[in-house]
């Protein structure tokens, strides 16, 4: 078990955004987190990545209790993420964007940096090499020296993934990666997600509204509504789950028969 949320609560003033959420992600899974708008999905991501501290409950990752850890510590521990509203370093090049995330891989000390020692030069080379490998893998190598802010939308989303992969994460959280994509792009995204898991051995957790992507690529799906878990299971079960349908379509729950 790679990631577990154990009875996690998050409250903002009067809003109980996440209520007793209990979920588990196994290593090697492609896991989906869905729910209507405002259900708390991104808040859950933010709790996992340390942006918010859980008010109650624990977050366990790779055998460690990471509740309350800082985002930088959690990233170093092996959790990478992308953001719902793309957060690239806009006036830096694509290559620089990816290299920034490389601290965990190679890091030169301050003195070495100031003196431009051989080890620091080696460090830079290694970072650049790895960054280019990742850019290539995501089809962005030709944009390496372009400003991140000037890239087309789809490329920006892929760059965010490349950047997160630079952390060599065990777990990758993708926040609405299919937003704004047409169906062809969405199919490519599905292939990329499978490739991430199959080739790079990264466990993927996906928050997504595009149901065809979710149903096609996720092996297990966790549904939340108003901060609470309402279902958890394989796509086949979720598709027909009465509570899920009610949450999305706003109907009254059918009687249990």
């Amino acid at each position, binding site marked *: 078990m790679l990631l577990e949320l154990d009875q996690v609560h998050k409250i903002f003033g009067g809003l109980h955004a996440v209520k007793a959420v209990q979920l588990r992600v196994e290593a090697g899974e492609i896991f989906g987190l869905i729910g209507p708008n405002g259900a708390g999905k991104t808040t859950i991501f933010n709790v996992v*990545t340390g*942006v918010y501290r859980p008010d109650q409950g624990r977050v366990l990752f790779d055998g460690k209790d990471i509740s309350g850890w*800082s*985002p*930088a510590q959690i*990233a*170093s521990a092996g959790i*990478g*993420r992308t*953001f719902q509203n793309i*957060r*690239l*370093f*806009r*006036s*830096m090049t694509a290559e*620089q964007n990816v*290299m*920034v*995330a*490389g*601290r*965990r891989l*190679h*890091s*030169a000390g*301050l003195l070495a*940096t*100031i*003196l*431009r*020692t*051989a080890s*620091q*030069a080696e*460090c*830079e*080379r290694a970072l*650049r*090499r790895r960054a*280019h490998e990742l850019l*290539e*893998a*995501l*089809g*962005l190598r*030709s944009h390496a020296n372009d400003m991140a802010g000037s890239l087309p939308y*789809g*490329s920006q989303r*892929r760059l965010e993934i490349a*950047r*997160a992969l*630079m*952390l060599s994460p065990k777990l990758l959280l993708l926040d609405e990666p299919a937003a704004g994509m047409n169906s062809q792009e969405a199919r*490519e*995204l599905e*292939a*990329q997600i499978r*490739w991430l898991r199959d*080739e790079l051995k990264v466990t993927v957790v996906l928050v997504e509204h595009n149901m065809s992507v979710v149903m096609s690529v996720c092996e297990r799906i966790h549904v939340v509504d108003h901060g609470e878990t309402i279902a958890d299971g394989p796509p086949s079960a979720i598709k027909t789950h009465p509570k899920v349908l009610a949450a999305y379509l706003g109907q009254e729950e059918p009687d249990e028969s």
Partner: protein
Amino acid sequence: MSDAGPGLAAPPPPIPPLPDPPARPRWGLRALVALGMIGGLALLRLGLEAVLIEYAQRIMMLAGINVILAVSLNLINGTTGQFSIGHAGFMAIGAYAAAFLGTHLAPAAAALFGSGMLADAVTFNLALVFGALLAGLSGLCVGLPSLRLRGDYLAIVTLGFGEIIRISFNNAQFLGAATGYFGDSPAGLPAYTNLFWVLLWVVIVIIVTWNITFSQTGRSLAAIREDEIAAEAMATPTTRLKVLAFSFSAAGAGIAGGLFAHMQAGIRPEDFKFDKSIDMIVMIIVGGLGSVSGAAFGGVFVAVSLELMRDLHEYRLVLYALLLIVIMLVRPEGILGTRELPSIVRGLWQRAGARGASSGGAER
């Protein structure tokens, strides 16, 4: 047709290979270059002193001090995007610390090295480094608690600290309070500062800042400026780096302060008012926030233009203020923007080459 993911569409077009790995730095060669440069600067100083009148020399030294101030401030304001507007306080700390230590070290140095250039050099540089260390430490003390504040608030806190530092010096009797600190001798502080030392320290500060800026550390600082939350999510230790940048920039201001102190007979808290902090900001804004070359340019610009406007004495500051407003309205990114001199020169060179080439290639 989008650049598809792995194994889906045609393979991407061939891309030029990565540049050759840089040559490994050889320390023997570096030492030689350093010595050569020091020698060159010494010759340069003698040459300038022979050619320029004292007034012009003084302007040059002030310009050099400004460059140190601007390049240092740029590290935290420009590269890291954390706005500090009280940096005059750190300059003051450097100035007073250097003056104080210099005054007290001089007799010991004279005893060890006799009274001559060597003693002076040792005393002066020890004093400067001491000033820088103290200023850097103050930067740490100011930065550590303040750097979790959002932009405007940080600016105000740094302003407040700058004022507190000035008021403290104003009330510090052992440092002369409002009248100023003139060292021990009746002639005032020894005039250690000359073109050689100024130029040498300018070179040192620029090299250190350049090396930090163009490295993983510098990239991380820029990432903090661009999007701190995303930077954190990419394992960047934001607090540690912000404090580091802040301390370094404070230390740089400290060096400038020490150099400034030993150009005058004495220093007073008046010399380090908020106006001085504004000067520093104008330097980096004019040159281009985030550019090391731009900061250097801005430093020279401010020193020179303030002197040129000296005749218009009363109108000087009004014009200065108008300049600031106009730049913000018309070209807020400053003269160089975030670009650096080498890349600009390269660009001009390429364009000149392209125009001359018969094939007329427009590729940059």
